């Protein structure tokens, strides 16, 4: 009897949970469906006026595959994703004879999947190439050389050529930078709290930050929230910018082009040493190595930290979450303070376009299909996309936009636009270049180093060994 009761209970619980699953799925697909037509109509309005020229000039009929990571969930808060999806939808509409086969995965899954497909030599016709894979995949003959197509592009004169660097090997360009340019290192801070601590703006040296941390400690909150639980954050959102302050941009360029620079160079070791010291001081939340950036930004949002260091993806989340809350108007942006002993630029931040639209080298044998793929690449990176993300989100992409009216955006968006594109000096994002094999080794060691378990010299030595072996 008892058994029967228990099993009945279990069955009921199971049925309920199944129902719940089913329902939530239904609503989510519905949401996606209702959202998509919306977006397309909007886009066609736009495109009808702006880019009518390319319509129906393509001879190709049939399937064209594309793989990307702008999922419908992602596009809710991320301007680049929204623009990407919208532009794809409008291209599809303009080319009814081409059936575009999209494979859309979340970013983390995309990286694994595309690497596996590359390993199998079975890449999709059109895909997003990550800067750091360029050299290896080009060596493998997987990626089409797009130099001539880029030169012949109808928008060639509007391209920001500096953004092509991660996709250039030996003077040849293999992708058109895609999505939106975003900073990977930004200090997001609560201006009201810092004013309380005696700073009108975010301090420009770390010593002043340490001074402020005494005040915040008394208040019972963290000075700066940071999350390195995924191991990549300390590299992408801290060291990549801080390293530039110590080494200057030439060092990294030389490392990328194999012109003699090494991880073991004193300036880089100094940057590592400084990183270790600053994380040892009380400036950051104590659990920085155990939580992710998603957790850390919640510390900021909930007021448990006076500032947060992260990337543009964190800022778009913070913006969406804080809207209509008092903290929204107090949130300001700053570059990393300058470390003592650093001789490089004082206001650099690492920004770029990490992915580019690339085309499978196999398409060379099918000129009509290739023309279609190239046209898709032009469209996805061209003015249609650029205008959309600039008008709607104040984001910039590889194609320059002539007239941007910032005044229609709120202060938060304006501030972040100025932070990203106007006020500060750009530097390279480390892990957009070189090779994942090097960064994986460095990131793992970096996490131990921040705990004080391995010395900066050893971190540099291991990274150099991985660099020599894999690059």
């Amino acid at each position, binding site marked *: 009897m008892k058994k029967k009761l228990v099993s009945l209970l279990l069955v009921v619980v199971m049925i309920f949970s199944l129902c719940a699953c089913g329902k939530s799925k239904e609503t989510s697909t519905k949401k996606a469906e209702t959202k998509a037509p919306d977006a397309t109509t909007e886009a066609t309005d736009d495109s009808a006026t702006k880019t009518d020229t390319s319509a129906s000039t393509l001879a190709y009929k049939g399937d064209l595959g594309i793989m990307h990571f702008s999922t419908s969930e992602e596009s809710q808060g991320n301007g680049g994703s929204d623009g990407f999806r919208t532009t794809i939808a409008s291209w599809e509409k303009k080319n009814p004879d081409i059936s575009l086969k999209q494979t859309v995965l979340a970013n983390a899954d995309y990286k694994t999947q595309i*690497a596996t497909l590359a390993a199998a030599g079975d890449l999709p016709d059109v895909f997003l190439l990550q800067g750091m894979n360029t050299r290896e995949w080009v060596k*493998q003959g997987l990626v089409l050389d797009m130099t001539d197509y880029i030169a012949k592009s109808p928008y060639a004169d509007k391209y920001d050529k500096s953004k092509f660097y991660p996709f250039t090997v030996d003077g040849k360009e293999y992708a058109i930078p895609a999505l939106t340019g975003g900073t990977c290192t930004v200090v997001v801070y609560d201006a009201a709290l810092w004013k309380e601590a005696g700073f009108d703006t975010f301090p420009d040296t770390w010593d002043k930050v340490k001074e402020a941390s005494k005040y915040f400690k008394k208040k019972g909150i963290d000075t700066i929230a940071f999350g390195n639980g995924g191991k990549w954050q300390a590299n992408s959102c801290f060291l990549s910018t801080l390293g530039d302050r110590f080494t200057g941009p030439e060092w990294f360029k030389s490392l990328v082009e194999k012109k003699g620079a090494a991880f073991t160079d004193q300036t880089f070791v100094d940057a590592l040493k400084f990183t270790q010291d600053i994380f040892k001081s009380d400036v950051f939340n104590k*659990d920085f190595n155990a939580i992710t950036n998603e957790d850390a930004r919640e510390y900021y949002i909930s007021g448990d930290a006076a500032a947060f260091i992260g990337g543009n993806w964190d800022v778009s989340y913070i913006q969406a979450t804080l809207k209509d809350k008092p903290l929204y108007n107090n949130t300001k942006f700053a570059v990393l303070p300058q470390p003592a002993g650093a001789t490089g630029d004082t206001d650099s931040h690492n920004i770029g376009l990490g992915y580019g639209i690339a085309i499978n080298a196999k398409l060379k044998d099918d000129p009509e299909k290739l023309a279609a793929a190239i046209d898709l690449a032009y469209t996805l990176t061209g003015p249609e996309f650029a205008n959309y993300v600039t008008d709607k989100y104040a984001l910039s992409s590889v194609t320059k936009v002539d007239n941007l009216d910032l005044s229609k955006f709120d202060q938060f968006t304006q501030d972040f636009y100025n932070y990203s594109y106007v006020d500060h000096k750009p530097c390279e994002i480390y892990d957009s270049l070189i090779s994942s094999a090097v960064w994986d080794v460095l990131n793992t*060691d970096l996490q131990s180093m921040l*705990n004080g378990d391995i010395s900066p010299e050893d971190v540099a030595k291991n990274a150099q060994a991985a660099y020599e072996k894999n690059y």
Partner: protein
Amino acid sequence: MLNSIRPKKWVIALYLLFPILLYVFAVFIPLITAGFYSFFDWKGGPNKTFIGLDNYATLIKDDVFWTSFGHNIYLVFACIIGQIGLAFIIVLMINSRLVKFKAIHRTFGFFPSTISAVYIGLIWLMFYDYKRGILNWFLELIGKGDQTKVWLNEPKLVMLLIAIPLIWQFIGYYMVIIISAISSVDQEIFEVAELDGANAFQRAIYVIVPLIKNTLLVCVTLCVAGNMKAFDHIFVMTKGGPGNDSMVMALYGYKISFAQQNMGYGSAISIGIFFVSLLVIGGVQFLVKMLTKEKGEI
């Protein structure tokens, strides 16, 4: 007599064909191809360079791989003691006459092993959380606020801390096996032992353990095999960190193959995992055989 109801050989073969094909496809082919790829310098893509045994030479000198192996062995020991040992004790407690609602205990004890390891990892991640976790909250509550730690960032503790969810998850699984082993023994034996004046501890050690020894040894083999392939909940909780302090072999192989895109060396690691696991499981089975033989002689 037996032959008349025995199906024809080809019928048996046909029945077996599908599972065998599935097994060959899912286990043998990947194993053989991994073995093949492990002789190449292959960073993904169509170009591979044959480098003979170089990958294996690297593997033998690879500290991270052997540290990971050590961590797997640690998990094996922790889980043999934690999972099977605790399961045995809990079963004895449930079987005692004093405990009510036995079926409920059994059902809920088995619950965690039905949950995906990823969820288990996430649940325990919240448990260990520095600011909002129950563990630190409890320490504060009992006045030991100075003992609070960023638990998963402690290189010396992290292996123990990730072993605990694993133990918690699978206690119920071994409980069920042990319960069925005990219930298949004639209950009169336990009654006689009790009448003869053996206390609970003596009954457990001198009566129950010898009677279910074979089952316990099967449990040990299962436990070893299960822990050599530990991956999911560690991937969720620490990603092998801090540094490589909670790295296990499967996670390391995954990292090399996919995060570092070094398919050739990744394949060599898989083959390495296959062989060291075979050795460990083989060693345990050898021990098991020795132990059961002893019993046969008596």
